[in-house]
């Protein structure tokens, strides 16, 4: 009996201390981790998508909550004078979990400026090509909100990467999700940008 109590007490105390410690460290590093993800994933993706911009998207970012998820939007003034917005969606069902896709959409003509893969855990050399080699995601460039961005085998107009159908599906799902989100939230986005 005494042994049992000591087992329970020790394990409970140990897990409680460990949980408390980790919660502390997590809240201490949270902001920095978010900054790092922005710096190493989102910012380069945005740079690829928009090229030179005349404002600072990171400073003008705003959030919109939709169906329980908070999305961050980065407004950009393009060199040709039009306004665009970039945001990230997560495509479900990649080989190693969700695949993040940053999509830039030109608000003036509702066309996709470009898209880039951000956070992912796909297989190097196969699925990871979606990020390393932008050839696949350039298919999204200049598509309008009415194009079907599913893979061709699912009735859409996007060619899958050979040898990486699952990743391609996840990325195209993220793109479709971005279209839907933009269509639903456009009034709100316009309000926020001004």
């Amino acid at each position, binding site marked *: 009996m005494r042994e049992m109590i000591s*087992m329970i007490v*020790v*394990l409970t105390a140990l*897990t409680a201390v460990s949980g408390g410690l980790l919660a502390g460290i997590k809240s201490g590093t949270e902001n920095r*981790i978010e900054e790092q993800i922005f710096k*190493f994933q989102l910012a380069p993706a945005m740079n690829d998508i928009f090229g030179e911009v005349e404002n600072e998207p990171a400073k003008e970012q705003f959030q919109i909550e939709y169906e329980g998820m908070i999305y961050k939007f980065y407004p950009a003034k393009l060199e040709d004078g039009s306004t665009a917005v970039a945001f990230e969606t997560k495509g479900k069902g990649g080989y190693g979990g969700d695949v993040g896709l940053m999509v830039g959409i030109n608000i003036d003509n509702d066309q996709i400026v470009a898209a880039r893969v951000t956070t992912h855990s796909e297989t190097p050399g196969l699925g990871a090509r979606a990020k390393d080699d932008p050839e696949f995601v350039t298919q999204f460039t200049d598509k309008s909100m009415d194009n079907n961005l599913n893979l061709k085998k699912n009735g859409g107009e996007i060619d899958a990467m050979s040898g990486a159908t699952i990743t391609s599906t996840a990325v195209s799902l993220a793109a479709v999700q971005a279209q839907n989100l933009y269509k639903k939230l456009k009034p709100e986005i316009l309000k926020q940008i001004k």
Partner: protein
Amino acid sequence: MAQSLAKEFTKGLWAEIPPFRLVLGLCPTLAVTKSVENGIGMGVATTFVLVFANLLVSLLRNVIPSKVRIACYVVIIATFVTIVELVMQAYTYELFLKLGIFIPLIVVNCIVLGRAEAFASKNGPVLSIADGLGIGIGFTLSLAALGAVREIIGAGTITIWGGTPVFEMVNIFPGYNPFAFMVEAPGAFIALGLMLAAMNLIGSK
């Protein structure tokens, strides 16, 4: 005391160097040693976990009931691994991207649990730190060596922390063509096997 301290520390560097002598912890050894940089990063992360897990297990060795000791060790180890993971994400995000899934997998690295069970649970904190540090540095050196072999043959260069390569194969053998097989998974097995054989050859003399 000082003598046994030195002994516990140095045994990890040669006599019990983890991947080659104990042949433990092969999962990260094979998977992340595509380059020297990855090897060192993985080794340092593992060393941190080893030292602190050893210290805590050793301090608590008389408190932890023997029936739940493995569960307690796993909680302690997992805590430090999560700390490493968070800190790496916050401060060395690029390295974190390269090591990816293998950082959380340190939890199930047999070297860490093995040292807690075989050494730290029977010895005092100072000796346990020396043991963890020795084994950890041995592991780091092994990963760096294996990473160097694979990177030199497979990529033809050695690059540490971005920037320009510190070593280029073409400077020694003009017209050297990288043998990319060595940076792929099968190359890891072959490089590890050859290095094991070489170490046994040296050790048997």
